[in-house]
Every structure is written in C-alpha cells, then in structure tokens.
C-alpha cells in the first residue's frame, strides 16, 4: 500500500496554485523572537510560574506561554509537532493523550538523560514514569498529578449523625444513602457524586468493586461480574437520588465544585487538591467543613490501585532548541522545584520524597494520605491510540444503564465486545 504524506499533498496542491516559493512558506511557521522560550501549556504557568521564571531569568530568556483548554491544547500540540518545524520549545501532555502513535511526534528522552541527567529521575513515581514509557523509551517527564481521594462535607455528616469517617468502601456506599436527604432550608443533598459518567471519573469507584475496564496488559474486563456489580449499584444510586439527575452530563469540574461548595453534595471522589476549591471561602458555604481522605478499601481486601492522571513534559521532535528544552525540564523536575510548586501552587508532587518535606506537610493537611495513594496509583486507562473511543463506549453504556435503556449486563457486554474489536484494529 502506498504511503502518502499529508503535508506532501498539501504542499503539492499549494505549489500548483501558488508556485513553489509561496507553498514553502505555507508550511514553515514564523520564528519566535530569539529571547523567547515558548511553552505550550497553561498548567506550567498556573502551577509553577515563579519556578519557571527563575529558570528563564538565569538563561536571560522571556517565557511565552500558550494556554488552551485540555482538548484544544492537545490538538494544537499535535498540529505543531506534525509540522516541518515548530517554534514551541517544550510542551506538556496529559497521560491519556500519549499513545504508540503519538509518541512518534516526540523525542525519546533517554539520550538527554544519559548526557545530562535529571537529579534522581527514579525518585519520580514509577507508575507515572511507566505510563510515559513506550517501547522501553521514556517520552515524557511527569510534573504534576491529580490523584483521587474521598472528599466529605463534615457539616453534612454531622447533620446526619455521622461522627466518623468511613473505614471501608462498604461504609462509603452506606454513608452515600444516609447522606441523601433534604436539609432544613430545603436544599436537596446528594450523598455521593462523581465528576461524570466517564472512565476517568468512575475508575476509582469501580476499582473498589475489584473491577477494571482495560488492564495494563490490555485485557478488556468491562463485562466482568465486578464491573456489572459496580454499574448496577450506580444505577441504584441514580434511581434513589443519591446521584443527581444532572450527573448524566456534568461539566467537570465546574458543576461538581458548585455542588460541593453549596452543600448540595456531601461526598465526592475527586483529586485531593480539589479540597482547596471546595473550601474556598469566596465561593463555598462550608469553608471550614471540608475533609479529604484516601478512599478506604473493601473490608478484607487490599486497596486497589488509586486512580491518577498526570501531566508530563515532552519535547516535540521538530523543535529547534531541544537542549534548552531539556535543561528546562531538568530544572522543573528537580525535588526542590517539585516542592516549590506544591507549596506555592498546591501542585500534586510527582516525587514521593516531596511529601516528607516539612513545607509540604505544613501546606497539605492530606499530605500523608496522598503520599500513600500516589505510591499505588495508575491512570484509568492504559495509553493506546483508540483510548478516547473506548472511553466514549464506556460513557455511553453507563448513561444507557442509568436512563433505563439497557441493563448493566447487556450494556457492559456491548462495551466489552466493542472495545475488544477496537483493540484488534
């Protein structure tokens, strides 16, 4: 089969119409100013601006950030990295967007590490590094994670006469029902919510039933009895009002933040760091009543892997100042930078050693719980080219069960067969 390159077709057509010189200029991006260092990723600015600025100052560079929402960020990144040359020096990537195909757009980092090593690279959580390793090569250096915990509004717990945090997952489910009630002021409270009916939002929940959608060795387990039990329980919660109707199409995290801040939800599975948002005194009715713990495991069972998602730095294959980019990554991923980002910006530290730092201990009341969770954390799905499609199959199936259009057994059987077919492609 003949291999054709998209750019060659575009250039050919443009050359036909415009002549070769102009066609060439169509596919060559404008050069950034010499003193600018272009970072594709607003999260670097939001969670480490002052640290990045210190690096830039030492190199006499001006930082230029390109900030977009998650989907647009990755579309832009992949477009930039597909050009003949890009002016983006370094970018960040969310773990779930990396796959066997996508890594072709980035430089493997092992050679840079051999030549000019990051201090104690092995100190970054192994699970996170592993998720950015393809074909034995490291393509990204993790820099911030969002690992899931169980958040509770303790004022609502007290109203229902609950004085202790749940110790088992069974107790979490029991509390969810007890915490579904109407408050004295008429506010309807949902006992337990998630950020949406998606793999990313539900994986912590179904893992505690002993279920998994796709295992790290690419086995599809969506139709296993444990998953069916989890989805059946979810259906019961939806029917009983433990989950609000709007759960079907939550816009995360805005909708769920609002529910927690207004006391319309009592518990939620979401990243530990979100506690600062739920307790934000400018927006929350309960600024002093938010608590977060690691999700307790089922009685008599070991804790399953905690769900985490994380950002890592990558260097586009077509960028022109790769050594400079690597120097930036080295600086930003050192233990001190990771600690600073945690303390100053509430960033989830990817180095477990950071949690032992007194500054982090002081800044995060949940430091020990998060440290324990991240030590055994994995992403909700392994990275593969069709993962977005598989995730959509899952969401559609869960929605179909919740609206009563199909049974949990049938829906999850369908998802499993669709996903297996997808993995064969």
């Amino acid at each position, binding site marked *: 089969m003949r291999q054709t390159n998209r750019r060659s077709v575009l250039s050919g057509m443009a050359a036909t119409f415009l002549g070769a010189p102009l066609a060439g200029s169509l596919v060559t991006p404008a050069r950034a100013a010499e003193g600018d260092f272009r970072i594709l990723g607003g999260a670097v600015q939001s969670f480490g601006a002052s640290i990045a600025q210190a690096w830039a100052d030492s190199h006499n560079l001006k930082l230029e950030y390109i900030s977009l929402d998650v989907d647009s960020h990755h579309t832009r990144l992949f477009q930039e990295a597909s050009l003949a040359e890009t002016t983006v020096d370094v970018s960040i990537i969310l773990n779930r967007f990396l796959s066997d195909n996508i890594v072709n757009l980035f430089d493997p980092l092992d050679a840079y590490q051999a030549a000019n090593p990051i201090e104690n690279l092995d100190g970054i959580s192994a699970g996170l590094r592993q998720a950015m390793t393809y074909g034995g090569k490291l393509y990204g250096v993790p820099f911030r994670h969002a690992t899931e915990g169980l958040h509770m509004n303790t004022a609502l717990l007290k109203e229902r006469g609950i004085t202790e945090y749940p110790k088992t997952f069974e107790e979490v489910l029991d509390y969810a029902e007890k915490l579904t009630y109407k408050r004295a002021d008429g506010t309807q409270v949902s006992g337990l919510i998630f950020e949406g009916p998606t793999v990313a939002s539900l994986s912590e929940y179904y893992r505690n039933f002993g279920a998994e959608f796709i295992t790290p060795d690419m086995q599809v387990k969506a139709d296993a009895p444990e998953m069916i039990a989890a989805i059946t329980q979810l259906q019961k919660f939806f029917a009983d009002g433990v989950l*609000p109707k709007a759960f*079907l*199409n939550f816009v995360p995290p805005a909708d769920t933040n609002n529910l927690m801040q207004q006391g319309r939800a009592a518990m939620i599975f979401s990243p530990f760091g979100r506690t600062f948002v739920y307790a934000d005194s400018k927006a929350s009715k309960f600024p002093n009543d938010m608590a977060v713990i690691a999700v307790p495991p089922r009685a008599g069972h070991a804790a399953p892997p905690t769900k985490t998602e994380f950002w890592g730095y990558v260097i586009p294959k077509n960028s022109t100042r790769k050594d400079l980019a690597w120097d930036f990554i080295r600086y930003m991923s050192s233990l001190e930078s990771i600690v600073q980002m945690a303390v100053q910006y509430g960033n989830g530290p990817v180095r477990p050693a950071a949690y032992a730092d007194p500054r982090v201990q002081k800044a995060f009341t949940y430091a020990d719980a998060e440290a324990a969770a991240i030590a055994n954390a994995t992403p909700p799905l392994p990275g593969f080219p069709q993962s977005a499609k598989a995730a959509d199959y899952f969401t559609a199936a869960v929605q179909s069960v919740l609206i009563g259009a199909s049974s949990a057994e049938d829906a999850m059987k369908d998802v499993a067969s669709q996903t297996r077919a997808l993995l064969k492609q």
Partner: protein
Amino acid sequence: MPYLLTAPVMIMLGCILLVPSIYVVWMSLNSSSFGVESNWVGLDNYVRILSDPVFWRSTLNTLIVVNIVVYVEIVLAICLSLALARNVIGRAVIISIILMPYAVSEVAAIVMWRYMFEPDVGIVNYGLEWLGLGQLNWVVDRWHALFLVSLLTIWQSFPFTFLIIYAAVKNQPRETIEAAFVDGANRFQAFFNVTLPAIMPVVLVAVIFRYIFGLRLFSEVWLLTQGGPARLTEVMATYLYRYGFRYQDFGVAAATALIMLVVSLAIATVYVRWLYLRSSKIG
C-alpha cells in the same frame, strides 16, 4: 487581459476554497491521524460511516431539529411580521426585543439556558414543576433534549429569519392588498392570494439559508448534552467533531463532512429549483 485582471481573485479563491476542498476529499479516502503516515483506504471511511447506526441516528436527529426549527421560525416570522407591519404601539421596542438574542454570545446563551433548565435546581424546570406541568427531562430523555435544542436554536436564530421576512412584508406595495380588498377578498384570502405569493421568493431564500445553517447545528447540542445520554442526541456536526477532534480520525471526519455537504446541497437544490421555477412562472 480580463483573465489577468481577475487572476488574483481566482488564485485567492483557489487557495481558500479549492485547495482545502480537494484536500478534504483526499483525506476522506485515507486513514489519517497524528503521528502516523496516511494510508489509502478508498471508500472504507464512507462504508464505516454509512454502516454506523449512530451516524444514521445523528442524521435523523439533525433532520428532525432542522425541520422543526426552520418551519417554526418561518411561520412565527411571517405572523410577527404581518402584525408588526401595521402601526402597532411599541413596535420599535418589540422589534428590539426580538433582535436581542442575536446580540448575545452563542456560547454564553447556551450555558445560560443549560443552567435555567438544570434538572435539579434550574429555574425554568422549577417553575414548570410548580405549575404542575412536570419537568423537561432533557438530561435523561432523548426527545425532551431534542425539543430543548430546537427551542434554544429557534430563540437564537429567529432574529435572522424575522429580519428577512419582515423586510419583504414591509416592501410589499400597499396598493396590491387594497386592490384585493376592493375585489371583495377577506383578510385570509388577501394573505394567501396576494401577500404570501409576493413574499414567497424571500421566504424560500430564508428557508435555504436556515437549512444550510441548521445542518451545521453543533454548539447547542455539544454544550447542552455532548450528544448524550448514550449518544441519543448526537447530530451530524457533533459526530464529525467527535471523530475529528476527540478520536483524531481525520479520514472519517472528512468523509462525514463531505456527506454533510451532499445533504446540504441536495436540500438546497430542491428549494433553489423551486425558487427558479416560481421566478420563471412569474417572469
């Protein structure tokens, strides 16, 4: 000489329209994504789309919403234009109110509607419940969701349809109506035999425009339901977006775009032909 003078425009049009169009056609015949070389797959992308039940449901949803939106807008616009063509008290204010939705940012308006119709605490759903009318269960029920999408689309795009038809009604010579009344016609006869035929070419233009815009229906559905629950409210444009930007499967996305183009052209052709025949008859 004339060719030389028009050459810059033709080259520009070639670059803006022709090159991208050829590129999309080429892409629809390839398997194409980021990080991999494109592979020639012939008509496989079209076969995949046409054998996907979700695509057919998306097409059906699009046609249902577009037909509701276009015809409700046209009927409402004609009725309001006739009423406002007379010397109604507060006409300028009423017209300003009708035009207001056009001044609101599309995304802001949809988000606003989403919160007003929120199933648990939305003010409109609360009001409906209070009146004993039950809730609009748009997050759960496909038909309720499509109804809400239609309502929102009508609210947003009605000013466009109204302006076109109102201008036509206002431009109709007063003498023709008066002549009809002199000949003994009542109001309905005057409307159906004089006014409507006179404004029909404009109505058809409005219909063509609204069909073409309507078939591209995207943000109302994406921001309200994202095509859910269970992809039951997906429309053609969200189907395309999902393949293009979520799955990065550009071959299928390009093929979907071309199918949408064919559907738009087919509908436009019917109305343009009708318009042409009417003009020929009148001419």
